[in-house]
């Protein structure tokens, strides 16, 4: 079993479904994450990302569906999964009244690590917190808390990392460092499932999954997902773009408009209809046909999901 376990995908779940109080939070989600892959998990707030992650690491029991994590059954072998998975919660969940070193040492004990002291000291060194290791975790800033949490969930050298919005509220430099670290881990064969709201982060993932209203809307590489939407996108430059966006909102052939700073992206499925619609209102503007980006694709997916599943009020 353990010999061929290395050949199994890091995550392979099918049709996971979970209700909370009659509300379907996760609806038949199937996901496959290969070993050594960084898999981005995207979707609007409340779309079921956190619940899906919790289902995969045994923190929640699915109402239906099945699957494996690192080759272990998520329903029956959650103890084995927990020993091999590092789970970083969305909200900081370490002990604020323990110091950095105490938190790490406690975590090391929970995972029954043998070379505990070395591992803890190495983690502190890596964090660059050697001078502040005795500071209480509660007194750390958001960025440092996030780094501590990552260090703690990496301590027992997990084979799979489940990271729930690990970079929310973290400054850009720290985010970049964090992602460099993730790629190093992936190169060593560690698999990562990471949920995020940032497009730049999504683009750094090997593969992506987009979830909305509890349903998996799309999976694949960033390019595949963008292409799969069948969208043509025009980038409009010039002045008065907000008014232009307003005017194009309900124009025939236009499915969405997205502002990107000094640029307005107008997308639609029919290229000719799109062009004529934009030309009609944007006569004084520069219009360039551009590749449909990930953000365009996600906004398209979200609008679709809203149309399909939004409960009539």
């Amino acid at each position, binding site marked *: 079993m353990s010999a061929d376990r290395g050949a199994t995908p890091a995550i392979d779940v099918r049709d996971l479904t979970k209700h909370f109080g009659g509300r379907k939070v996760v609806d038949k989600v199937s996901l496959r994450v290969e070993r050594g892959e960084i898999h981005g998990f995207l979707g609007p707030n409340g779309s079921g990302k956190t619940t899906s992650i919790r289902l995969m*690491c*045994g923190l929640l029991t699915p109402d239906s569906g099945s699957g494996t994590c690192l080759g272990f059954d998520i329903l029956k072998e959650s103890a084995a999964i927990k020993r091999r998975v590092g789970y970083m919660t969305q909200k900081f969940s370490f002990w604020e009244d323990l110091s950095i070193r105490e938190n790490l040492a406690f975590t090391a004990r929970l*995972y029954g690590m043998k070379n505990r002291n070395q591992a803890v000291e190495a983690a502190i060194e890596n964090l660059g917190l050697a001078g502040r290791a005795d500071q209480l975790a509660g007194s750390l800033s958001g960025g440092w808390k996030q780094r501590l949490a990552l260090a703690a969930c990496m301590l027992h050298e997990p084979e799979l990392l489940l990271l729930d919005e690990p970079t929310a509220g973290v400054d850009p430099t720290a985010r970049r460092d964090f992602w460099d670290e993730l790629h190093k881990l992936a190169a060593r064969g560690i698999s990562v499932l990471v949920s995020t709201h940032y497009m730049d982060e999504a683009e750094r993932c090997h593969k992506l999954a987009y979830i909305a209203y509890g349903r998996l809307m799309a999976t694949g590489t960033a390019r595949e997902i963008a292409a799969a939407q069948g969208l043509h996108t025009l980038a409009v430059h010039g002045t008065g773009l907000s008014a232009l966006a307003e005017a194009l909102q309900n124009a025939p052939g236009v499915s969405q408009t997205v502002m990107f700073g000094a640029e307005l992206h107008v997308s639609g499925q029919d290229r000719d209809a799109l062009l004529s619609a934009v030309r009609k209102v944007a006569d004084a503007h520069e219009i360039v046909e551009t590749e449909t980006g990930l953000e365009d694709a996600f906004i398209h997916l979200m609008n679709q999901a809203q149309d399909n599943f939004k409960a009539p009020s």
Partner: protein
Amino acid sequence: MTPATPRSSTFTALSRWKVLTPHFSFSRWWGMVIKELLQLKRDRLTFAMIVGIPIMQLVLFGYAINSDPKRLPTALVLGESTFLTRSLEAALRHSDYFRVFAVTDEAGARQALALGEAQFVVSIPADFTRRALRGERPALLVEADATDPTATAGALAALSGVVASTAEREFTGPLARLRGVPEPFAVITHRLYNPEGLTHYNIVPGLLGVILTLTTVMMTGLAITRERERGTMENLLASPVSPLEIMCGKIVPYVLIAHIQVGIILLFARLLFRVPFAGDAVAFYAGALLFITANLGVGVTLSSLAKNQLQALQLTVFYFMPNILLSGFMFPFAGMPAWARAIGEVLPLTHFNRVVRGVLLKGNGWPEVWPHLWPMGLFFLIVLTLAVRFFKRTLD
């Protein structure tokens, strides 16, 4: 590819049990213990509570609930004035229990009793001395204010002693034939007094168990809900630590702390109330250990049932009430109806009260303590099983 597994309900139940009780890891458990101790060290308020509550309760209960008050106002109605009545009056005046004032007639005495000016009326009828000398055993009437039954118990007991010793003293020489059993005169009291005769010696050892119940159940009662409220439970649950390890890990630090409390209470009981420690200390500590562990188990169980810290606190109070009322701390155990005694027998406090009073006051040792140890141990095992059973292993 693993084939989809059908989930039969018995299978789920079995696997859930396996999940609940994986093999106990000493390392993980010890990790919990150390973490709890560190957190406790930084939680000043809890620490103050641990030291403050025992002392405060002991002083308040010990001094304020004085079930054996002294110098109670006593109206003396003398129907005659002889060597015997004068001697009785002097003896009453010398006793700590009575503050005697003379009233001329029965009506005045009644009024003093009704107004609360007198707690007792002692009436010596005319002819008392003559009949006593004849050996007719005349009656001496005592009327007690029964509104506070416990308050008068000690005084009433003392009264019999006063009377007996007066007889002893006065009937000498030719009158010596009147001494002995039966006594030369009877004391008729118009109320039965509390047979258990609550005293400091009784209430202070009882407080030991009451204080421990309150503090230990509350401390662990908050322990698990706190993790849940602060969001750290998610972290614990995502790790391989088992419910049993979490619970035992949370109990152990408080066992130490509760023993500190026992030390504090015993010290104050000795210093402030001069409560003796007559029996076997080892047997006592064995009882204390089991009692404390059982209560901590209750706290942990309530904690896994409660959704938040407030609920845990409410459940603590809910558990505290029957302990106060049915354990023999507040009311004599033997005087309770059978159903109340049955509940009382289950509670660790009932058994601990017997251990404490037995060891401290009666000088008991292992043979007397043992019958109360195993019920507490059994209670703990059952409670811990329930706690592990009800502990939510997931966030569902």
